[in-house]
């Protein structure tokens, strides 16, 4: 090869490739396989759908064996978004862990935060000491987050079928709630707002009115979505009897969430093993019997209304508990987050800094030790579940008595539910794969963690 040949990239020199493992799809029995395929002359094609396909909700890779338009075999390949969050959490303090786990399922970040913090509190044995107002704020945020997550599911599901208006309406409605998140937590996603022992800070003044206004407009957009979707003959044709997974299949594969409830079992962790005081809220767990993609859409819409019903109850409780603490009283656990708005935005309260720097050396030492070392958690292990928009999210935490998790494992519902891809898609059309996967609503950030 001449050196004057123009190249887009540098040519590879042999000395650079020594020591790099090479893989070649040749030799072995590949020629036999190719020969057999040529001899049989079938119209059997293996198609890789993804990992960069717009209808796979991120980087899901579907390996489809198709015969004409029929899918004869479907496999899901994951791992393209694996970032080692669980491993990283073993190298940070218990409080810093929240910042990591919130990034797992980025469409429903507050659920990871809540589940993780509940697990840490169980390990510390302070579950009953968490103030009521903190639990109410957690429920408020989780239910608002459930609505946004379901809206993303419906919006992207519609978009994948070419119904762009469903997407724009869904995302517009979600925007109303993201504004509320921004008001309360400061961020639209990756909040790290729920902390072991409570929440980072109280809701700002005026947020209850803002949430009421947001709920009114979300209700308006949900009506629009219903009008667009529920009587739409194209959606009926595309979704009904597609992606069927009956109750026995769901139980065998450990499927939870709207997919399990669409098969007729009203299993919801909020009812089965209540946390954050869910047993004191009035809400229903909608179910249906059809076990197809259509019933999952209807269920998700209905769950949005149930969540709004819970949010209304939390607003009443927030008014009643105004001024009460939002973090445990134990100063050995409570993160010292005395925040205030300064000239350059939200930051540490100057009064608090003046107090610890100027008047109380013990407070300064305590602040320093808690922030740099963190608190110690007694040795042991716990498992804590919460009802995630996609199913049961479980957190398995192991402590060795130190200031960092010894092991943090997240049983993400999307990870488990993706196992149903094969059974839902095989035997159907290629176009139905998109519908079936959308009805599982996987978020690959949570799947791969």
């Amino acid at each position, binding site marked *: 090869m001449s050196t004057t040949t123009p190249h887009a990239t540098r040519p590879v020199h042999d000395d650079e490739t020594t020591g790099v493992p090479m893989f070649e799809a040749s030799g072995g029995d590949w020629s036999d396989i190719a020969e057999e395929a040529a001899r049989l002359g079938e119209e059997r094609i293996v198609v890789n759908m993804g990992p960069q396909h717009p209808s796979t909700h991120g980087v899901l890779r579907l390996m489809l064996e198709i015969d004409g338009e029929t899918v004869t075999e479907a496999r899901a390949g994951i791992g393209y978004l*694996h970032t080692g969050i669980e491993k990283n959490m073993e190298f940070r303090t218990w409080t810093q862990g929240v910042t990591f786990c919130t990034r797992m399922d980025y469409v429903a970040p507050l659920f990871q935060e809540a589940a993780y913090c509940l697990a840490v509190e169980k390990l510390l044995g302070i579950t009953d000491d968490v103030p009521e107002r903190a639990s109410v704020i957690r429920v408020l945020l989780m239910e608002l987050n459930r609505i946004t997550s379901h809206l993303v599911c419906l919006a992207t599901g519609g978009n994948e079928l070419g119904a762009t208006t469903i997407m724009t309406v869904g995302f517009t409605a979600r925007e109303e709630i993201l504004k509320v998140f921004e008001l309360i937590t400061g961020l639209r996603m990756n909040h790290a707002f729920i902390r072991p022992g409570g929440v980072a800070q109280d809701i700002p003044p005026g947020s209850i009115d803002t949430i009421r206004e947001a709920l009114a407009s979300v209700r308006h957009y949900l009506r629009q979505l219903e009008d667009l979707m529920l009587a739409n003959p194209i959606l009926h044709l595309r979704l009904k009897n597609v992606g069927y997974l009956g109750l026995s299949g769901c139980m065998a594969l450990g499927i939870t969430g709207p997919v399990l409830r669409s098969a007729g079992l009203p299993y919801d962790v909020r009812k089965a093993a209540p946390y954050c005081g869910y047993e004191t809220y009035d809400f229903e767990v909608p179910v249906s019997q059809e076990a197809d993609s259509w019933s999952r859409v209807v269920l998700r819409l209905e769950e949005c209304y149930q969540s709004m019903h819970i949010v209304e109850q939390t607003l009443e409780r927030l008014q009643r508990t105004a001024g009460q603490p939002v973090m445990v009283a134990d100063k050995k656990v409570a993160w010292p987050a005395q925040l205030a708005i300064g000239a350059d935005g939200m930051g540490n309260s100057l009064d608090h800094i003046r107090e610890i720097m100027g008047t109380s050396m013990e407070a300064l030492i305590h602040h320093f030790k808690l922030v740099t070392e963190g608190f110690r958690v007694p*040795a042991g*292990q716990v*498992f804590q579940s919460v009802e995630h928009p996609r199913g049961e999210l*479980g957190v398995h935490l192991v402590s060795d008595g130190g200031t960092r998790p010894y*092991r943090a494992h997240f049983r993400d519902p999307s*990870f488990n539910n993706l196992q149903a891809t094969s059974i839902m898609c095989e035997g159907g059309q290629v176009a139905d794969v998109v519908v079936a996967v959308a009805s599982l609503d996987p978020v690959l950030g949570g799947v791969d963690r």
Partner: protein
Amino acid sequence: MSEDKDLKKDAADAVKPGEATTGAQRTTATALEAGGQHVPAARTPLEVVDVRSGMFGAHGTGDTSGFGGLVVPVVLPGPSERPYGGWFDEVVDVLAEVLDENGTGFAAAVESVVVDREELTLHVAREHVVAVAQALRDDPDLRFELSLGVSGVHYPHETGKELHAVYHVVSVTHGRRLRFEVTAPDGDPHIPSTTSVYPANDWHEREVFDFFGLVFDGHPGLARIEMPDDWPGHPQRKDYPLGGIPVEYKGATVPPPDQRRSYS
């Protein structure tokens, strides 16, 4: 400068007499004896997870507090004694009955029962894990029909049972949840696969294999799931480094997270 460092090192050695031996080998008889007084009376044979020395948990620097000689073994909650409380007794009784009837034998299959933080853990012998899972799922009085998957834990200090697989199961019928834990030594990392009982554990077992190197015998396709197929090593094991590079920020260099000072 270098003299200064040597002095510091000498000082550190002086206040930490046990430091001369390697860090990992400090699980000694004296350490166990010293820590024995921290053990609650009702819980007997304990699994030492780690041994911690000094007052503040910082490694690599001299502990000048005078508590540098303090040695505390880290132990997980040990076996509980009856009554376990609530429905735990009933579940263990029924499981014992079922296992004794079908010939597995409760005493052989369940090594210990741990009740901690209102959660029930059964430590199961690895050769009987499938039988226990089958009994937990199929008996109408147990009926743990929903599996929430498997998670691995690596305890490098538990010689002979370094690798743990923890199975989480839920009974929707009875509204109960428990977990059973199986161990395998590092030298023979094999556990029978439970996919025949709980098909849901398929991907979860693949994940544990991928991250910990635990081989689930009888699994229909035990391949890596999160890491690339040609990845060397099992990243979630404690002896696998986190990795990372130092980052320069405003003139100061911040070391990667696993090389920063830690206090555990």
